[in-house]
């Protein structure tokens, strides 16, 4: 294929800035397609893609499926609950059975970090990571960057705050890696129990003072918060979380500037973000959703659509 360095999209780790730029640029051309009355191009006609979802997902799966349909690919959806994974057919058998039916690409969401890389050992198809546990969610990172480009016309030098549960967020990791690659400054903000060790090695700042961070930032990307994960209570209460880290109307109004508000969804309104803020003019949350379809079209096009002369290139 040629235009991108890697054959799969397993994460934004190791993706050069030129490739991120290419994916975003192409996505903007697909955005125009989405604004047409007939929102379909024949780019992936004859290609077959399986959406392999081992974890519940609504928006990501629909977004990928729409992107595939807009590109005229044939798509099949496979969903399995993660609890049935441990017992039933092995991961390898599932993967190899699907591949045996002659498919070109697999879009996979899986609760275990590293599962997409694992998948590439068993299949020849192009693998696109739609979220692997608490590791990466590369298309989310790309669509967030595309949305920032749409708002600010650039990424280099932008000041981006990522707020909330960094430890358990694949969105945070892909955002951090992508934004740093593109020259943005990143500050992470959240309770110390939700900031992973050695994260500063990725070139980010860490702060526990939300008001200062918001004063500094051009945009804030707000992550969904859960009080409890697998029986561990990382924060004492939602009330205290809101008081320390909630994007409340009062907090936003107290700023003497415009702050761009982002959220990867699904939102807990009234928890990490107030409804008034989520619905305000500065929120680009629904633009993120639309850009999600465009960026996934771009990824599919570059990995599956271009003339495939890969290998000896």
């Amino acid at each position, binding site marked *: 294929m040629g235009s991108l360095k890697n054959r799969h999209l397993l994460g934004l*780790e190791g993706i050069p800035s030129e490739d991120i730029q290419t994916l975003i640029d192409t996505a903007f051309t697909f955005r125009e397609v989405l604004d047409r009355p007939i929102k379909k191009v024949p780019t992936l006609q004859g290609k077959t893609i399986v959406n392999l979802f081992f974890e519940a997902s609504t928006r990501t799966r629909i977004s990928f499926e729409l992107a595939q349909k807009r590109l005229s690919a044939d798509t099949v959806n496979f969903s399995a609950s993660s609890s049935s*994974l*441990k017992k039933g057919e*092995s*991961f*390898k058998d599932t993967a190899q059975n699907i591949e045996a039916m002659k498919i070109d690409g697999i879009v996979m969401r*899986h*609760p*275990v*970090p*590293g*599962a997409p*890389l*694992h998948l590439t050992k068993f299949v020849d198809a192009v693998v696109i990571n739609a979220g*692997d*546990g*608490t*590791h*990466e969610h590369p298309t989310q990172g790309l669509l967030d960057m595309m949305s920032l480009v749409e708002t600010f016309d650039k990424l280099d030098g932008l000041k981006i705050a990522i707020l909330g549960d960094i430890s358990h967020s*694949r969105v945070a*990791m892909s955002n951090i890696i992508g934004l740093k690659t593109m020259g943005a400054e990143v500050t992470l903000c959240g309770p110390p129990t939700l900031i*992973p*060790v*050695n*994260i500063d*090695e*990725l070139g980010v700042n860490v702060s526990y003072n939300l008001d200062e961070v918001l004063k500094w930032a051009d945009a804030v990307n707000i992550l969904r918060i859960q009080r409890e994960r*697998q029986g*561990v209570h990382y924060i004492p209460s939602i009330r205290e979380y809101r008081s320390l880290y909630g994007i409340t109307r009062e907090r936003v109004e107290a700023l003497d500037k415009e702050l761009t508000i982002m959220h990867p969804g699904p939102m807990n309104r009234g928890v990490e973000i107030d409804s008034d803020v989520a619905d305000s003019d500065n929120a680009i949350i629904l633009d993120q959703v639309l850009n999600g379809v465009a960026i996934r079209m771009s990824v599919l096009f570059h990995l599956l659509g271009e003339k495939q002369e890969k290998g000896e290139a």
Partner: protein
Amino acid sequence: MKTKQLPKSVKITNCTILDPFAEKEFAGEILLKNGKINDVGKSISADGVDELDANGAVVTHGFCDIHAHFREPGREDKETLVTGSRAALAGGFTTVCVMPNTNPPLDSPESIRFIAEKAEDLSIQLYPIGAVTVGQNGKEMTEMGEMVKAGAVAFSDDGIPIIDGEVMRLALEYSTQFDVPIINHAEDVDLRGSGQMNEGRWSTRLGLAGIPDVSESIMVERDLQVAGFTGGRIHVPHVSTEKSVHAIRRAKENGVNISAEVTPHHLYFDDSALQTYDTNLKVAPPIRSEADREAMIGAISDGTVNCIATDHAPHTVEEKESPFEYAPCGMIGLESAFGAVWKMLSDKKMSLLDVVRKLTVMPRQIIGFDSDLFAKGAEAELVFLNPDQEWTFGLEHIRSKSRNSPFVGEMLKGQVVSVVSRGQIISFK
């Protein structure tokens, strides 16, 4: 691999004898009669005996592994006492102690007897370690006295830490009358939580839940304090962190009756190797940081950690082919042990004699086995080594029934050429 009965009398010639007990190294000969040591010396005159030319190999005591899982009874699809013994011989091990976390666990005199009886027919010396508590439940002590009589040589709930401090105290007190070590898998299970790998930069990068180093050292500290308090014998298995090393060093300085082991894989790998998400590197305790690995090398060099033990833990291909979080902990380690350890430690100014002591005399002394294997009349347990040989470890070197080894493809240093064990000579060339 070729196996032959030893001749009634045989003189091993053309070898360098490495005596890890007397701490001597010399060009010499060994005379075996009826499978026992008759003489070890520079030149032995014996007429009418067969001669075995060692081709210049280093001949030393057969290695002793005090920490292996042979999965029998219960998971004979992963390993049996017979296949595990073959893996041991391929690694130069002629004595192995097997852990009790079988199904059912080795928690009764009857189950110990089952292993002891089967061990009579094996090609190695094999001894069972009994469970400390019934069903490894961490609560009621097993019949240690009866189990010692049946053949148990140490006690451990391996894999499962003894969480209850009172049970640990009682076990350490009670076991003093039999002079056997208690081996406790040192881990604070709450601090481990759902951890999958060492907590640090790599767990953050890979998105895998971290296991902090203090989850080990906190339990090591407790065990050392209880051991000091009771006068019991504690042995710390598979030490993996710098903090644990500090704790052990301090306790030894204070005269606490303790010993410790390190695995070849904790000397060899650091957690950056997990970048491939190779499930064969998923072990408990986890592969730690580079600083921890260096601390382990320091600890085995200066004697803070007494010996090397493999924690040979076979698992099926399908279990290890599953995504990282679902794969069980453990790797096989017998076949690759010497090549991995000698590669790592020969770089660090340790002599072959020092390294061999950590595989022979030291582990035997921890359990209380006779460690002067060149004494006249000792049953011949010998390993022939080519220490300078560099070789790539491959699936063809694995004799275990399982093949979950991250050493496959690694260039190792030092090869086992042949082994004398239980009246047989087994050659791998």
